[in-house]
């Protein structure tokens, strides 16, 4: 049976050192979000995840969702767990109190989401989709729509979905066919088929609100002709109860590699009543605004799965007794040494630890900047934070989902043959983690977003939000003897990132395929430097705390050692990546299609 314990200590450390103790409560509107309150909330949330959601993870995987005559049933226990989750107010943790939310910073929700994803990613999909719908509606919906639907989403009696994909239209949303025709009143009639709709149909809530991309009759071709509509499963009565059944139904559910307890539905819209969200033909804009939050959330999914897989690998490596240390017996009282004595097992575990803790810090920083971008009093600070988030979003999404999958895979390896057995519980993490690299824009698309859209925007203005602070911190760290061992290699890696950036910008301007060919390697290179930056910051903070006699010395020393491991063993990948980037597009594009 797998284990899970929410990494509260590490979250506290990140909040304290990366975000800054009082940074959140300093933002206008978040005055109440004091460190104490946040700690209390996270502690409670951790308990819920460990005790309620986690025990349903393996059984949910085994049972999966079932479909019968348009009705979808979630696995045993999900309904009760969902009710508890909703009644605890967890869905609306960061939602507006005007609609019944708790009004806490988004970052707090982001940190909690990690626990939820570690404990039970399939479960997390349902409230996660509701939050996505909440964000879209609260940004773009009319006051009437907001008043009618948001409180229900926040209290969790109704849930939400995002209906984008169609059978022939995935990454390229410009070619969707779902149609919306204006009705006599202020509503529209929506007709079309959507696939891969997470939480499209289920038995957790009394109503489901679909946010649907569709074309109006006079829509221009391509992405400039897509509008966003709200289509409820049941049209609400004036008293707020679900009324008449709308023309939307689940045709079937998919049988998937992972997240089996999350229903993935084919949704058929047949003359369904819906309401326009935002302006006509501006649906993509609404999607894009939400995407920063949604992509960060998917990155968190990767990290969360990596964390739980890593915890299980560590537990197993400490208890599994096989052979002896290469340097002779380490545990003479035991029949064999635990496998954690072996350098290669160490390599696996350290890799997981360094990636996951670095990712947590990075996710927290980006999540915090999302709050700054929304709430800071100074327009310029808000704009700069928004630019940082825009730049880092594709990196966080792709890097952290790749890392999540890698670490889950590592955990299986550490378990040896037992890892391959379903009952052990770690192979589920590999299967569950796989989708995060694909949905919300495949990681290949994230890399294109980085080099194609983010890099060149306003002559590299977004890049400044990363390069300048990192450069400044590096310059300071290079002068600090205690940090020089980390700062030196990171400065070199940063130099490679600068050179690669200049090279891709230059080559990509003349030939977009050059940028495309470098994209994935470049994103990883960028991500490694970003993690290196986080490790430099964490090491600096840990040293300072140790010097001041604050905190748990064992925890802080482990931080320093993990920072050293990351710098010595993982960061050097930038050199290989740099070389592959330099090699350009030709090796990829040279071969004729027929030769494949």
């Amino acid at each position, binding site marked *: 049976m797998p284990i899970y314990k929410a990494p509260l200590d590490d979250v506290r450390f990140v909040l304290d050192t990366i975000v800054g103790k009082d940074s959140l409560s300093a933002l206008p509107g978040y005055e109440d979000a004091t460190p104490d309150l946040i700690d209390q909330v996270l502690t409670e949330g951790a308990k819920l995840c460990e005790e309620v959601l986690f025990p349903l993870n393996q059984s949910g995987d085994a049972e999966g969702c079932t479909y019968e005559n348009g009705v979808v049933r979630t696995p045993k226990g999900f309904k009760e767990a969902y009710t508890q989750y909703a009644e605890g107010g967890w869905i609306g943790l960061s939602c507006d109190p005007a609609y019944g939310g708790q009004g806490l910073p988004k970052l707090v929700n982001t940190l909690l989401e990690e626990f939820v994803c570690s404990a039970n990613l399939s479960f997390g999909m349902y409230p996660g989709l509701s939050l996505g719908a909440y964000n879209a509606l609260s940004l773009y919906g009319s006051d009437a729509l907001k008043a009618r639907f948001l409180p229900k989403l926040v209290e969790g009696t109704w849930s939400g979905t995002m209906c984008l994909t169609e059978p022939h239209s995935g990454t390229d949303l410009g070619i969707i066919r779902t149609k919306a025709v204006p009705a006599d009143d202020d509503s529209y009639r929506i007709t079309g088929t959507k696939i891969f709709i997470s939480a499209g149909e289920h038995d957790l809530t009394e109503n489901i609100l679909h946010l649907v991309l569709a074309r109006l009759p006079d829509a221009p071709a391509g992405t400039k002709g897509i509008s966003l509509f709200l289509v409820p499963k049941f049209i609400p009565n004036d008293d707020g109860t679900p009324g008449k059944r709308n023309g939307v139904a689940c045709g079937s559910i998919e049988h998937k590699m992972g997240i089996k307890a999350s229903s993935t539905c084919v949704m058929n819209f047949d003359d369904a009543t819906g309401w326009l969200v935002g302006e006509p033909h501006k649906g993509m804009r609404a999607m894009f605004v939400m995407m920063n939050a949604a992509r960060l959330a998917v990155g968190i999914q990767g990290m969360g799965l990596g964390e739980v897989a890593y915890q299980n690998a560590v537990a197993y490596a400490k208890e599994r007794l096989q052979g002896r240390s290469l340097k002779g017996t380490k545990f003479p009282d035991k029949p064999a040494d635990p496998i954690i004595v072996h350098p290669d097992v160490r390599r696996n575990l350290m890799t997981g630890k360094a990636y996951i803790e670095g990712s947590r810090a990075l996710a927290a920083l980006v999540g915090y900047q999302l709050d700054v971008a929304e709430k800071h009093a100074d327009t310029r600070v808000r704009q700069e934070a928004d630019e940082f988030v825009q730049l880092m979003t594709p990196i966080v999404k792709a890097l952290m989902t790749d890392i999540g999958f890698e670490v889950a895979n590592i955990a299986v390896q550490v378990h040896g043959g037992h890892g391959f057995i379903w009952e052990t519980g770690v192979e589920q993490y590999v299967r569950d983690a796989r989708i995060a690299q694909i949905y919300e824009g495949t990681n290949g698309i994230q890399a294109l977003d980085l080099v194609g859209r983010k890099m060149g925007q306003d*002559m590299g203005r977004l890049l400044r939000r990363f390069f300048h602070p990192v450069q400044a911190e590096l310059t300071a760290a290079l002068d600090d003897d205690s940090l020089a061992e980390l700062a030196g290699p990171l400065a070199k890696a940063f130099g490679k990132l*600068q*050179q690669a950036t200049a090279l891709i910008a230059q080559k990509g301007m003349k030939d977009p395929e050059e940028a495309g060919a470098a994209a994935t390697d470049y994103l990883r290179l960028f991500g490694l430097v970003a993690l290196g930056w986080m490790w430099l910051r964490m090491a600096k903070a840990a040293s300072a705390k140790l010097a001041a006699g604050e905190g748990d010395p064992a925890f802080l020393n482990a931080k320093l050692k993990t920072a050293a491991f990351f710098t010595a063993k993982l960061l050097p990948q930038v050199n290989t990546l740099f070389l592959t980037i330099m090699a350009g597009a030709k090796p990829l594009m040279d071969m004729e299609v027929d030769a494949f």
Partner: protein
Amino acid sequence: MDSKRAEIKRAAVIGAGVMGSGIAAHFANAGIPVVLLDIVAKNSDDRSAIAKGAVERMLKTEPAAFMHKRNAKLVTPGNLEDDIGLLADVDWIVEAIIEDKALKADLYKRIDAARKPGSVVSSNTSTIPLHMLTEGQSDAFRRDFLITHFFNPPRYMRLLELVTSPDTRTDAAELIADVCDRRLGKGVVRCKDTPGFIANRIGVFWIQAAINAAVEQGISVEEADAIGGRPMGIPKTGIFGLMDLVGLDLMPHIARSMLATLPENDAYRAESREHPVIAKLIADGYTGRKGKGGFYRVNKAGGGRVKEAVDLKTGAFRPAERPKPDAVAAAGKDLRALAEHDSPGGRFARSVLVKTLAYAASLVPDIADSITAVDEGMRLGYNWRQGPFELIDRIGTAAFAELCRSVGVPVPALVEQAAGRPFYRVEGGKLQALSVAGEYETVARPDGVLLLSDIKRASKPVWKNGSASLWDIGDGVLCVEFTSKMNALDGDIMAAYQKAMKLIGDGKGAWKALVIHNEADNFSVGANLGLAMFVINIGLWPAIEEMVETGQATYRALKYAPFPVVAAPSGMALGGGCEILLHSDHVQAHAETYIGLVEVGVGLIPGWGGCTEMLARSAANPKIPRGPMPALAPVFETISTAKVAKSAAEAKDLLYLRASDGITMNRDRLLADAKAKALELAENYTPPEKPSYVLAGPGGKAALDMFVHGFRLQGKATPHDAVVCDHLARVLTGGDADFTQPVGEEHLLELERDAFMALVREPGTIDRIEHMLTTGKPLRN
């Protein structure tokens, strides 16, 4: 020929209205003393108040009519009663009074009586045929008379339409054409004596056809300008924007005069009509920019500044839009695709293009002997990038004929005759045009005109890269042409200079000299800021430092190269584009060259030797008292306020040009003049001596600091100005230099580099660069 040797030593202009006074100012710009006469002022003690007032006004208005304020002294204002005797001393009299035949006839009699025998008289009329003007005048007058039609404003518009009668002395016409070309810098186009000559005949038709199409097809003002401007190679003001500039109320007058004189069957008659919406605009005072606005206006209600456009259907103003018509997006640069596009925008483009171009094509040979004259007229007189026949070639003559048929416009005879052949072709490296007889004839350039575009047609570059080309311009002279976007300077341009130096070597082989020239609107507006911004954004400082060092080293190498370097700029030469001029042995500048070290505007200082060279110039200037402080004060002022000279003449005052640098009035003659100078210098060339500098040191810096502090207190300098000035002052005073110890230029160049590298990291500078890139305007932070 003797006539070529005859000269215009003095001139006179009669009529001190906008055109007359502008023409007088331009004579002064050419260094020709000029008498400006108008009628006796009725309500003034000063009987010459009208002409005097015109000169006064011209000294204040922008864009300036004078290239240098001192030129005003060359204008002698007077009145037609007391001062008509002054005409006895002038060689050319230009009449520019109102378009009234009787008044002109009377004036000509008085001029004829007062002028010296053999002097030339010309009229600036745009509507009265020459044969009517000379009716009843003396035989001598008829022989000495012609029409010289300038365009407004006379200093800036390059077209001069020249019309003669069979009576006109050939040598008089040649003399005037030559003076207009060489001294006034005009593109002289010979026209026949027909209404509106070339440019206005076609231009008026074009505007009318476009307005008709917009009103009748329901195309908005902004859409019409978005389609009828840039996509057709016409200034972005388009049609309605141009009307606002010219004045809406002028249209009915022009229409009337055209209708009075045009042939019975002229296509303009069918096109000419009044639109109630325009009549109402004029009646309401919306006569254009000179009035309350025109088709566009700026609504300042409630303290805002909202650009509005008139709705052609309702006549009401509404916020202006920035449409991107489908036809323009789909066609890109393909003019044929634009004209054939199946959309409202395409239909609009089709009617305007087909009607206008067919009209123009139908007028040759009635209005001019060649298609080249018509094209030149529209290019120089209406600032079209291409003339009507060049535009037809872009569509293709066969496709154009087809378009004519599709909209029911008769296919012009010349287009029929072309039978699918283009109007222009390049044969044996020479540009040829179809003659009226349907034969290709080589396009002849006036004597002494050397165009880089002709050289480019006839040869391949000696060498080129992504941002520059090297051309053989004959007689052992190599020419560097910038080809980068906006002629922005980058590493490739530095590489081109390096390559040129390698090719020319010691200047004693195949190559003798280097000319730096291009035919773009602007010589260069400086370093590639976008590229720099990207590098700054990723903090790749060594790349910036390398850019600065390479620029300094390259410019220095050109300065001390064993062969002469002559720069021949026109239009804007800013920042690094100015610094290359400062390092050239000689600058042959087009009169309309706008030079400036504008780095401060983006929070930087000149880093490619600009500070160093300016300091040397100032120290060597005999007009400036000796000593380090007097020498650096004007340099500090010029650079710290990013002064841009508004003409080549002004650039000499600011030391951007030396007294010895040449000025060419006619842009088409610039390259030839530069090449001649380069060859002259190549005889026994020795590179310049390296100057040594006496620098003011910390004491001088303290004085400048106080000066800047004062400006800060007065609010004339912004906080970041003070930061930039601090660095500039340190460079110009030589850092910790001791004024008793002269130093070499290396010391100053190092200070330039250090200051540049410090400033480029300043957030205030980064904000300025970014603001310039996104808005095109300097940030005052």
